[in-house]
């Protein structure tokens, strides 16, 4: 089996991987780096469970050849951090947006991309944007509500603190988030 060398950054850490050329990004993450939070629900590019951020864009790791990721930055659910990620997680738990948890990593990554966008979205727009992620357990209502809530909280957090939460520490107003 042909091997290739790939340099990429995973959760902000540079990695050099020598892997069989046919290895997918999902298999690289799961089998070579032990990052099993990226789930495989179909390996056909349909269910979205394998969604990761590749250079800040949500992609299907099952259809992405690892060898094509030379120089790329990858973030998986294990490395998804920061206020947007945390508010999204909190909204998921509060709304009941997960049951078995198998679709959840993909939902979080795809949802995070929307939350970070700071664009108010209608329910229909959220549904459209999330239509490539399949959940067999929840029936989606709670997932859609959780993402809607996290989007508005993200927008509020960006605009509100400057006016309503005075801080003595002198922390920059914009982008200060709870």
């Amino acid at each position, binding site marked *: 089996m042909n091997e290739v060398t790939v340099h990429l950054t995973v959760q902000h850490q540079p990695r050099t991987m020598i892997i*069989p050329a*046919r290895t997918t990004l999902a*298999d690289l993450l*799961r*089998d070579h780096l*032990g*990052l*099993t*939070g*990226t*789930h*495989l*629900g*179909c*390996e*056909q590019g*349909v*269910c979205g*469970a394998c969604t990761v951020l590749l250079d800040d864009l949500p992609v299907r790791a099952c259809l992405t050849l690892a060898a094509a990721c030379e120089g790329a930055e990858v973030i*998986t*659910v*294990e490395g*998804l951090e920061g206020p947007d990620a945390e508010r999204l*997680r909190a909204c*998921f*738990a*509060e709304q*009941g947006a*997960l*049951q*078995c*948890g*198998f*679709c*959840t*990593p993909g939902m*979080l990554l795809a949802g995070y991309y929307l939350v970070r966008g700071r664009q108010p979205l209608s*329910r229909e727009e*959220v*549904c*459209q944007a*999330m*239509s*490539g*992620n*399949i*959940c*067999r*357990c*929840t*029936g*989606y*209502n*709670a*997932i*859609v509500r959780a993402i809607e809530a996290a989007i508005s909280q993200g927008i509020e957090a960006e605009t509100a603190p400057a006016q309503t939460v005075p801080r003595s520490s002198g922390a920059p107003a914009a982008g200060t988030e709870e």
Partner: protein
Amino acid sequence: MTTGDSTPARRYGIGARTPRREDARHLAGRGSFVSDVKLSGLREVAFVRSVVAHGRITAVSVPDDAEPGSVWTAADLAQLAEPLTATSTLAGFRAAPLPNLAADKVRYVGEPIAVAIAGTRAEAEDLAARITVDITPLPAVVGFSDALAHNAPKVHNDWPDNIFATTSGDVGDVDAAAREAAVSVTREYTMNRQAVVPLEGRGVIAHYDRSADRLSVWSSTQTPHMIREMIAILLGIEARRVRVIAPDMGGAFGSKCSLYPEEVALAAIAMKLDHPIRWVEDRWEGMVASTQARDHHYLVTAHAAADGTLLGVEADILVNGGAYSVYPWTATMDATMAAAMIPGPYRVRNYRFRTRSVAANKAPSGPYRGVGRPGACFAIERTIDELAHELGLEPYEMRLKNMVRPDEMPYTSVAGKVYDSGDYPEAVRQAAVLIGHDTWRKRQRGVPTDSRHRIGIGYGSCTEQTAHGCVEWATRGLAITIGTEGARLEMDATGGFTLSVGIKSHGQGSETTLAQVVSEVFDVEPEHVTVIHGDTALTPRSEGTFASRSMVMAGGASYGAARQLAQKVKRIASVLLDEPVEDLRLRDHAVVGRAGSLGYRELAKEFLFTPDHVPGIEGGLEATYYYRPAVETGAFSYATHAAVVDVDLDTGGVTLLDYAVVEDCGTVVNPLIVEGQIVGGVAQGIGSALLEELVYGDDGQPKSSSFLDYLLPGTTEIPELKIGHLRTASPNTVFGMKGTGESGAIMPPAAIGNAVTDALREFGAQANETPMTPQRVWTALRDAQDAMAPIAETVS
């Protein structure tokens, strides 16, 4: 057992909307599913499977250079494991041994033939591709007419025909009802075959540890204890040597509660190897070789009086069970359930039925959320609407008129089911209000006749038997009569709780709800209770999670164990506080008396570290309780669903405009989780109604074996549901709980089928087959317009 003492409502107990304890690990990507398990020396398995639906195996050739122990065929496995044979006590039932690996004949595409083992899955697939299988094809049996034809090829050569079993019944006097009736209608209904599709497929790891003489099997299974016992029996070893672990599971919905050949094959092979082996089902395998579901056909005749009173029902039911009976359910499970559920929530007293469970060259059928009920509900509820239409009644009025009333509870249905409690008509009334019935009727009437769209309103009602005991399973012919659950609760030396249960939570949130049961008794936050499930070495014997039984059965067992332990804790406190047991209460992590109080932590430390300080109390700070319901006929949940659809007359496309559910699952343990079960169930039911169909060609080739051609509902297909709740405690269960895992999935085909038919009334087209794809709806519309002839019905 009842809730007994007058415990005030606990903060985290029954009814609390506590957040799920499972969430943190899944939200962090730290769940551990079978495919995530890390074991040293683990090698991966790929199966060679039949690509022919029906045929004779003439040769299986293994590559000469395959390493010893890397390829296994039926010949290798023959001495290691018996084939699985599901039996039934139903008269005339025909058993068919289910081979672990096919030996002489293959009976469906996807049937396992050989095992290839290598360092990675990709390499195992490379090896599998080099194993050649020669098969002489035989004509395949696919649909009902093929299977029942006089000269049909036989799926099992030693059977006289292709029928697993026939059942029938005749209660009351249907013929007299027919003579009395003002209206009789006859309709045919089809609910096509579906895949179950948990997002995580099946997966198995097997490892024989020579030093411990223990075979460990990890499996994504709803029934770890049952799997353990059957693996031991089929391998001819004592079950003490087998441990089954079900780690985190990505859903199951019934598809992971039968024993599978892959589990037996891996276990048998692992006994001969010195390293663990793992097989993870890929999506193609999931679509062709996991148990499938539905595939029902109904011929229903119903008779009603002019005032809408339902007088009698006749049903001829066919279920395509696929090639084999799965253990322990057998291929007759759907048919017997469907026959019992055709009378629905109605007071009908005359009922005649026949069921035939048919064998065909498709993957074996197994349980799927609702088991038989979605089809039966579709058939009877569509028929109720047809009667209502003939009589000029609003369909919901027809339901109100005929439903069992609360003052008639408990009510024994014409099929012998004992409906325990509830207000069925109230669910209909509230569903009509919730959906805005009158407003939609107005809007419907306002649609101009030249519009290319129509609006329709439809209802579906059903009762759902849950958490039934031995009696029920025995009447359905099961060789094992299920009906007991165990739980063990320990308080440790730091005052923490560990609850061990043999059921397997796989998305239902039982780690949360069972902890709430302990909270209810001990008044501690659920995070102080560890719930262990899914490991036969750590949990009391159990039957598993299926049939909407876990909350009632394992909840009942957990409550029993908690009450026993609470008694002991109070006795210990009574000694230490020097107060009578009757004066002691459990409050906020402590035993509280009139004079003093003692925290669980101090109490446990005192009792376990220095038992001599607590004279007269026997050792051990734990209790085990086995729950068996006193009334074994089950606790019946019920619901009415209402759907509003838009039908596009040019494309046949159906869009859901609104959807409402009014349900009653008795006492609710956690509203967040119950709502999740309802919405998730409805989404699957919408899939059944509109999207999902496993299509088989005439040659038995599965044609929808990927997510590209098997359509699952997505975010854009499921509207935000309106949900109303009724709460009638079951008299038969602890706390009055009723199961609710399946209910949501049962009614959508009925409600949506009625709505689509309502939309198309003026054209005379009916939605009598699921899924109601654009093509089916469009064809029904065209045929109705072409014919403009009445469908088989008699008006006397």
